């Protein structure tokens, strides 16, 4: 059974939010950090309190800390040394492993996430944009009342038009794969991989391999915690639309090309189940929209190209021990919507997303290194993930087609990493323990 009254809500639930704000903080001293944390900790929802109040609640708060942040709050060196190496180093130091090179290199990140003084992140999600304005004020006054706790940077996020469901700036429907974890009360939808062991995502529980092992210490700090990889990914909407126009003569061809890059139609309908024509009804049906595999259904990639985004970030039955590499994804869009007929306006827009997992190296970094940015994934030779892989204009994208495949060369970068960091997301008891400084 999971400690639903202790696990931060975001691990198991999505808030019904249209808006939000991420704040990146630094503490000048342990006292400053603890004072701030003590004042905020009661606002953090556990899974249980979140579920109980979901009908009326207007805002949801999540707190997480970098390794430097745990130190800043006074966690002792012996305990700090028990955290995994990759978390201690931080995301920027792992750039080469993650494929964050060229334009994606941390030297170009814009939000201060490479600052060693980055200690904490506050994720505020609100039911409406108006609610955000209100609760943002509350966070600001709380911060003002804790001298020595400072705001390094912030990012506002919100749902964008035109669709009534979650989607990114390119128009791709999001939030289609929802993992179900044993003991969470959630039932898996067909194709989402069955019930997954909680220890793959939450520390202190059995994982796919067996009983919990090698957890950070002390136990009060690690139990019910998880690791969080933050990625701010700019989406170059103008460039994406130009690319579709250049490589597709008709709107139908352009739409099919967009689908081939992703592995799903922009509506969300999976190509494996709807290879020739979009099927929005299929996309809307959670019992069907994820119910497919590759080994039998599409071994050569005639529906979903072998290098398409969804085939890389979740290779389903074509990867070994897939359940050791699953991840919980959360996030939202930031920046203004670019209407279909509008030219690129050079404003930054994109997705600010999180990956939640028990092991950054085995889950998040594995996906980046082995699936997304390995040029030779599935023997492709000269490709990376066409949506979120590191692209420098020299790689290609192959679309298996009968009788012969289509190869698009010189694929441009549709996205650029603009920030990122690793955080530890403690349970509620651990937050209190950190605040008390015992």
């Amino acid at each position, binding site marked *: 059974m999971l400690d639903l009254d202790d696990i931060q809500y975001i691990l198991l639930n999505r808030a019904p939010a249209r808006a939000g704000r991420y704040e990146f903080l630094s503490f000048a001293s342990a006292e400053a950090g603890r004072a701030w944390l003590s004042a905020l900790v009661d606002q953090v929802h556990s899974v249980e309190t979140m579920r109980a109040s979901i009908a009326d609640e207007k805002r949801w708060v999540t707190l997480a800390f970098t390794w430097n942040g745990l130190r800043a709050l006074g966690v002792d060196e012996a305990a700090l040394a028990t955290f995994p190496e990759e978390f201690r180093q931080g995301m920027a130091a792992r750039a080469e492993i993650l494929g964050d090179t060229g334009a994606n290199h941390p030297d170009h990140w814009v939000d201060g996430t490479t600052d060693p003084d980055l200690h904490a992140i506050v994720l505020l999600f609100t039911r409406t944009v108006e609610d955000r304005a209100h609760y943002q004020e509350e966070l600001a006054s709380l911060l003002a009342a804790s001298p020595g706790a400072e705001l390094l940077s912030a990012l506002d996020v919100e749902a964008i038009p035109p669709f009534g469901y979650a989607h990114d700036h390119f128009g791709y429907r999001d939030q289609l794969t929802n993992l179900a974890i044993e003991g969470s009360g959630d039932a898996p939808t067909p194709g989402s991989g069955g019930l997954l062991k909680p220890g793959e995502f939450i520390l202190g529980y059995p994982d796919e391999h*067996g009983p919990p092992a090698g957890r950070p210490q002390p136990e009060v700090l690690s139990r019910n915690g998880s690791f969080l990889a933050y990625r701010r990914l700019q989406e170059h909407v103008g460039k994406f639309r130009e690319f579709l126009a250049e490589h597709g003569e008709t709107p139908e061809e352009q739409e099919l090309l967009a689908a081939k890059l992703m592995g799903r139609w922009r509506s969300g309908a999976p190509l494996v189940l709807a290879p020739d024509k979009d099927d929005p009804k299929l996309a809307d049906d959670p019992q069907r929209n994820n119910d497919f595999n590759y080994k039998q259904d599409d071994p050569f990639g005639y529906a979903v190209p072998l290098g398409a985004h969804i085939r890389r970030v979740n290779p389903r039955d074509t990867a070994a021990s897939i359940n050791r590499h699953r991840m919980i994804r959360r996030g939202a869009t930031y920046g203004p919507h670019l209407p279909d007929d509008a030219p690129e306006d050079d404003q930054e827009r994109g997705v600010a997303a999180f990956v939640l997992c028990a092991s950054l190296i085995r889950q998040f970094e594995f996906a980046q*290194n082995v699936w997304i940015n390995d040029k030779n994934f599935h023997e492709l030779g000269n490709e990376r993930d066409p949506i979120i892989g590191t692209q420098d204009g020299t790689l290609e994208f192959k679309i298996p087609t009968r009788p012969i495949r289509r190869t698009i060369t010189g694929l441009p970068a549709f996205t650029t990493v603009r920030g990122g960091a690793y955080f530890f997301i403690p349970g509620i008891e651990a937050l209190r323990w950190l605040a008390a400084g015992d």
Partner: protein
Amino acid sequence: MAIPEGGFFPDDVEYGRYGPIFPKTPACYGFTIVAKIIPGREEAFREHGRTLEKAVKDQPDILAPLELHYLRWVLFEIKGETYFMYQGIFDTDFDKYTEDAVALFSQSGISTVFENLEGFPADWKTNPEAFVEFVRAHHRPSFLEYGEYPYVSADEIKKALRVKHLFSQMLDQMQ
């Protein structure tokens, strides 16, 4: 390809999740692990040979996640002590599939061989870092590697054989 002492080209070291990656050569990726066995455990190694043979017979694709060309297991003696050499040739850097390899070897029966080596970490099943560390510490990098069909992957070879087979079937159909 001649390889500098230490196994890396100093100006071109790529980093994987568990540290620097040994370079790909015309003979693909690979390792040569040399380690002393715990005295008196020779039979455990020979038993491992039979176990693995059976595992592959029962499930021919059991080692597929490792993207292998060849594996060779050798026992030899130096001054009355028995050493083990384990040489693998594969298509992806070892770093990429470390956890998958650990998971695979952890499956009962396949694991025994490593546990009979001196200094092998007792907690290796839950500690991939320690596993990698042991492999790195006992890896003897080549100073020269050659491939008669350079840089060709096992998958390409399997595809070529499949094409050859299908082509002869096609010719049969035309008789």
